[in-house]
């Protein structure tokens, strides 16, 4: 059944590609640039090289043709109504990026909603079933689930401005889906969040995630409930699959943990000093908390740090399709990549990384490969019973 689905998807995508390759995108009747049959190769219209471009191609490190294409998308997005709706697992953390988008493209606005796990699935299903589409773009590290496993809520779109960095050439399919159903503009670490005033009580920093299973950290490790989909669960699966954790260290960590109900509550717990360390702290949340003045710090270990691909999907039936496409393009502009690094993520453009934050640089953090999602999915089947047993409520 699954294979048949994939075959059908592949065939469909091939047909679309074959039918549209090399065509010149112009706004269709619905005002969609590169939409419908043109999704895969929206080669920009270059007949007006002197037109006002919405972005500076040199500053943003894109070609003039791409800048013209973005300008066309922008104009079409304005005609659509100008409000882009994004479902994101990190809506609050992405505020700075959203602000930049709104500054760069006057008249367009972003409404972002924090959705992940079951509520996200419910929203996508309900929109598909009722035909009342609301969201345009999905940002989710496990976006493949909403494309290949739990249904297909995507529409293929090849992002023109996205370039896979050389050092991740072996993981290209994790950056760009071969069928263009998702794309990844940046990565992010799950690292260690530390509440500095309680560091002394902990007797110093752990040396690895596995080290957090040491009895000296009893009651000092904050953990979002790993039986619920979210960063804690994802990070554990990543570490178990990659050998960064074994069963003994997992059980040790479980014994040392203060389990909170939700990922956000764990971040709040860290900011309030309920525990000295947060396991698998998302970099953006801790960096944001530190900027607000909380005595917290983000760090990564020399090895075995869970790496997350922040995948983006243009949703099927997106009411603001052009705005959605423009956003996916925008994420790869140099200024957006810089803003992404400021939040604490790893931009694909190494030049945009923050020298003072090594976790924003692939080079500094030694990132050469991304563990494929199917490996993680396999780990889910294999290790979830163990995780549930170790963290039984």
């Amino acid at each position, binding site marked *: 059944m699954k294979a048949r689905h994939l075959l059908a998807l592949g065939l469909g995508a091939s047909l679309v590609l074959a039918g549209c390759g090399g065509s010149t995108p112009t706004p269709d009747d619905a005002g969609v640039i590169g939409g419908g049959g043109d999704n895969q190769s929206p080669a920009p219209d270059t007949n007006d090289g002197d037109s006002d471009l919405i972005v500076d191609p040199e500053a943003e490190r894109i070609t003039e043709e791409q800048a013209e294409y973005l300008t066309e998308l922008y104009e079409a997005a304005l005609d659509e109504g100008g*409000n882009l*709706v994004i*479902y994101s697992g990190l*809506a*609050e953390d992405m505020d700075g990026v959203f602000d930049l988008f709104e500054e760069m493209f006057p008249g367009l606005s972003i*409404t972002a*909603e*924090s959705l992940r*796990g*079951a*509520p996200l*699935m*419910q*929203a996508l*299903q*309900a*929109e*598909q*079933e*009722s*035909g*009342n589409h*609301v*969201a345009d773009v999905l940002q989710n590290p496990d976006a493949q*689930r909403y494309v290949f496993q*739990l249904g297909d809520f995507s529409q293929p779109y090849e992002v023109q401005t996205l370039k896979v960095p050389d050092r991740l050439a072996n993981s290209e399919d994790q950056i760009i889906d071969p069928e263009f159903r998702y794309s990844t503009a940046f990565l992010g670490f799950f690292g260690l969040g530390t509440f500095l*005033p*309680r560091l002394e009580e902990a007797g110093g920093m752990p040396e690895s995630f596995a080290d957090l299973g040491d009895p000296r950290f009893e009651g000092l490790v904050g953990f979002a*409930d790993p*039986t*619920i*989909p979210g960063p804690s669960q994802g990070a554990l699966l990543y570490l178990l699959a990659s050998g960064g954790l074994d069963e003994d260290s997992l059980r040790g960590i479980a014994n040392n943990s203060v*389990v*909170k*109900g*939700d*990922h*956000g*509550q764990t*971040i*709040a717990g*860290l*900011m*309030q*000093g*309920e525990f000295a360390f947060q396991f698998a702290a998302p970099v953006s*949340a801790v960096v944001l*908390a530190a900027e*607000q*003045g*909380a005595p917290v710090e983000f760090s990564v270990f020399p090895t075995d740090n869970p790496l997350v691909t922040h995948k983006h999907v243009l949703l099927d039936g997106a009411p603001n399709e052009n705005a959605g496409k423009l956003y996916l393009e925008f994420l790869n502009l140099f200024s957006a990549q810089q803003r992404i690094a400021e939040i604490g993520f790893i931009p694909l453009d190494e030049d945009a990384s923050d020298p003072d934050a090594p976790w924003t640089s692939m080079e500094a953090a030694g990132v050469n490969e991304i563990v494929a999602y199917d490996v993680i999915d396999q780990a889910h089947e294999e290790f979830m019973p163990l995780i549930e047993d170790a963290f039984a*409520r």
Partner: protein
Amino acid sequence: MARNETATWVRRQWSLRPARNLQIAIAVVAVLLFVAPLLAVLFSAFRTTPFGGEWTGDAVRDVLTAGDTWSALWNSVLLALASVIPAMLIAIVFSVLITRTNALFKWLIVATMAILVATPPVFYAIAWGLLGNRTVGIINVIARGGEQWGDGPFNIESWAGLILVSGLRATGFMFLLLIGPFSQMDRSLEEAARVSGANPIRNFLGTQLPTLMPAIVGVLIISTIVSIEAFDVPLFLGVPAGIYVLPTEVFSYLNDARQPMYGHAAAVSIILLTLLLALLIGERRLYGRRQFTTMSGKGTRSAAWQLGKWRLPIAVLTVIFCMVAVVLPVAQLVMSSLAPYFGATSGYSLANFSALLGDWNVIRIYLYTALVAGSGAALAIVAVVVMQWVARLRPGRLRTFIDSSQMLTMVAPGLLLAIGLVTLVLASPFARSYGTYWLLMLALFISIVPLASRAISGAMAQIPTELEEATRVSGGSHLRALGTVFRLIAPSALNGWLLCFVVLSGTLAIPLLLSPRGQTLLAVRVYENYLNGNITVAATLFVLFVLEVLVIAGVVEVLKRLLGRRRGSSATTSTPEPGADADVLTHKSPEKEYAL
């Protein structure tokens, strides 16, 4: 021709029995609005998903055989008993102090209880979540002698915290329900006992309390229902401690998995519904008997009990209660709204306020919430007035059904109602209404009808049934009579609207499932910020909400005064001040006034 004959027949039938036909029409609407969503929940327990799923009994079997289900049921019962019973005792004490004694600070007690009831539970839970935070909550910081980053001694995310916060809310709720019966009680018995030499306490326990017992039991049952279906406080304070009650168990099936488990959630809902329905039937039976209604206004002129040397200690205890119940949580929220991050000891400023007020998206959330809550509350008040007016037109089973149906959704927690509506809508030709303003408003309207009913029933009961007859004799229509009713109860309706508006503005469960995407309601935004660790933002949103409510309450007060001036002070059917309280507190019929 046939069509004309049919129309003539309908017109004839209508004119022959207009009252009965009106009642039938209203009863049908009541079935669709209040009964159908509950039946849909039963239906969805046997479907894998409302989105074209398959029939299966797996979910029901899984739920019935899961230890977590019975643990949640036990927790629900335990929480209800542990919070409602002490709350009842405290509420009785305060009711006695207010209605019988010369206690100091009576206004403070009434104000505290009113704030407790009117504060949306999501905000109250968050306030206590911060106040009792084991590291930086004010209570613990004070208990540790000012040490900022310590641990304990009190942890609000625990059984003790859950019971405390639920109990405080229940105290306010029960006080407002009890104060009516206490103040309206016939005091001739008390006078007789006093003359016979009984001291006031013995007199109260021996003669007054037994008389009030049916009212007390009725309030106890209603409060138990409210406690068992409570979602917000257990979500914020119970779930982080691993304490699940039935409503949060339902939510966990919808929220804590890779995809929502609708069948399982509905199956747990059925257990919850059965429990609540049994309690409601008990309460209705108690209410239906009506043999205990020995109320009169005669004794209200009796002299107040003199507290003597106890007056000051009781005043101190009163102030302490008010501090714990309202002042401390609010102070914590205000402090948090001024802080750069939760737990900060310096750097207080208005930065959070200026950031939020400068954000058009936030302003839009307030406006949208006000629109949805305002229209839902207005619709509920109008609907309840119409239903109660139609019910009064003619005695019989239809009247009983229409009266009872208004309370039916009291046993449907928000999540359950939302699941029912989703199932109904997606199976109907109105599938596109899913995720729209209209469906959300409909759900909120249905959920608030029980409260609106209680808010209006007192004022409605004071309108003589002769009004209808007088209008008819004068040649007026039913519609005209209804218009007169609306005019007469306008002040009470405004009070009721305000109460419903405040409650709906803070409702969390329904918007969590039915909010139009991309258009968040205030409570959901607060919930998201709290869960994401943006505590100061959540606190600031609450403070701004309080300011919004104060402004709207001011406008309502002005409107009431304008109405009062127009009608003159002699309007016989206006609600006596403090009218809003009295209206919500007691259920009155044209013949007698009944305790709940």
